[in-house]
């Protein structure tokens, strides 16, 4: 545990600089550069709104905001988890040159996604204004939910990072599994109203992505307090997963370079 904190402290600057450089590289090579960070999620939202409202003829209150919250939260979770599988392989050049605690790569990647998530937060606020969603003080609970989903994603990510080194086709399996979880996270439908009672409760509690998306919608759209106990429990679960993952990495990371 102490080793983990020391390592993070020692390499924090690296992780931040790497994340910044990556974000910069992303925009310098495109025409609309940073506008993409806004355009990308908004276009996604428009597509889903079109499909659900026009083609399926159903809707939820404030649907564009509703689906936008679902999509961006899912993006954060999905990118961290699926990105971690190949992260050691992608940094093989560095790994063969110098010793770095391997979760630093994940940390730096997660900063990139967290930054994009923050942009999405701004868009949520703009959308709320545009669609006349009433603002309430509950919005201030936002950081709590972010910490919760981030910790859980990071924890799962550290474990995937470890197994991703040794199991070559883990990324295929993860992608299929994530796709499955995606459709069960209530991104473009409301779990609590569309799915009969005992199942909907289970889905909302057992799936961290669905749980956090639901909490976000509570504070932004419904204006009611999030489930604090649930958030705390998932936060602890995330910490436990991180502890397991970090322990695995500490134990085996010196042999990663032999495999990749």
């Amino acid at each position, binding site marked *: 545990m102490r080793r983990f904190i020391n390592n993070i402290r020692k390499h924090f600057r690296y992780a931040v*600089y790497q994340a910044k450089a990556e974000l910069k590289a992303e925009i310098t090579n495109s025409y609309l550069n940073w506008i993409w960070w806004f355009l990308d999620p908004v276009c996604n939202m428009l597509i889903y709104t079109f499909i659900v409202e026009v083609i399926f003829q159903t809707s939820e209150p404030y649907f564009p905001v509703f689906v936008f919250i679902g999509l961006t939260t899912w993006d954060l979770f999905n990118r961290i988890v699926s990105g971690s599988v190949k992260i050691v392989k992608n940094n093989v050049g560095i790994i063969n040159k*110098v*010793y770095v605690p391997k979760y630093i790569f994940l940390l730096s990647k997660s900063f990139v996604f967290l930054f994009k998530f923050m942009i999405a937060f701004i868009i949520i606020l703009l959308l709320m204004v545009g669609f006349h969603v009433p603002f309430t003080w509950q919005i201030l609970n936002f950081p709590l939910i972010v910490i919760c989903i981030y910790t859980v994603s990071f924890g799962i990510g550290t474990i995937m990072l470890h197994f991703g080194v040794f199991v070559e086709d883990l990324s295929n399996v993860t992608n299929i599994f994530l796709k499955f979880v995606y459709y069960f996270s209530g991104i473009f439908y409301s779990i609590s109203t569309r799915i009969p009672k005992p199942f909907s409760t289970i889905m909302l509690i057992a799936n961290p992505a669905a749980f956090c998306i639901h909490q976000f919608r509570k504070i932004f759209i419904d204006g009611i307090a999030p489930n604090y106990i649930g958030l705390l429990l998932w936060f602890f679960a995330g910490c436990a997963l991180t502890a397991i993952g970090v322990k695995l990495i500490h134990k085996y990371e010196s042999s990663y370079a032999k495999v990749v």
Partner: protein
Amino acid sequence: MENAVEVKDLHIIYKGLKKMSIKQSITKFKINRMETFEALKGITFNLQKGKILGIIGKNGSGKSTLLRAIAGIFAPDSGTIDLKGNSVSLLSIGAGFQNKLTGFENIILSGLLLGFSEETVRKKIPEIIEFSELGDFIYKPVKTYSSGMYSKLAFSITAILETDIMLIDEVLSVGDIHFREKSGNRMQQIIKDESKTVIIVSHSMGTIKDLCDEVLWINDGVMMEHGETKTVCDHYEEFMKNLKQQ
């Protein structure tokens, strides 16, 4: 003189760590597991501070593995490596640059990874840029570099950001004749610096004989000889000649 590097009975084994697919792990659960290959079989040596050690041996004898183990990239399977708290860096061909980022950003990232503070790296950057002769290319993404520019930059970073112990893996021939001369001079400078401990892996007997105070000869992971440059090199050359005749 105090020792800068102490390696004791070092073994490095590549075992059961073969990558596999999920299908393989189900169907061949036990068979694949125990494939082992011992790259280093008990290496023991001490190196005094400020000395230059050359490591020689034929291809696949474990020289690079040894360097990586000293750099902390591999953990020893048994035995110990003690660097006495000295900082260490490995200079090798094909440095870990990130292609999308500019040379400038890669310098800072490499520096941070080597354990320098951002301020130190920033102070040294003009020197690195000048030494690498990249000019304005330093602000372009590394993927636009030619292979010569790439290795020049890699060399410059490690040569300017000096650590206590420098490990050099076959890079004394970088770039064109002009840069080669310059990097050679720079190496001489580092090597002459009494506070720097250097370990060189090279197939060029000329380089080894010119630069090294002592030589370690490894053959198939086994330590053959460690001693004065001339004696060990002579024995090694004789050995290789016999090998050819067989």
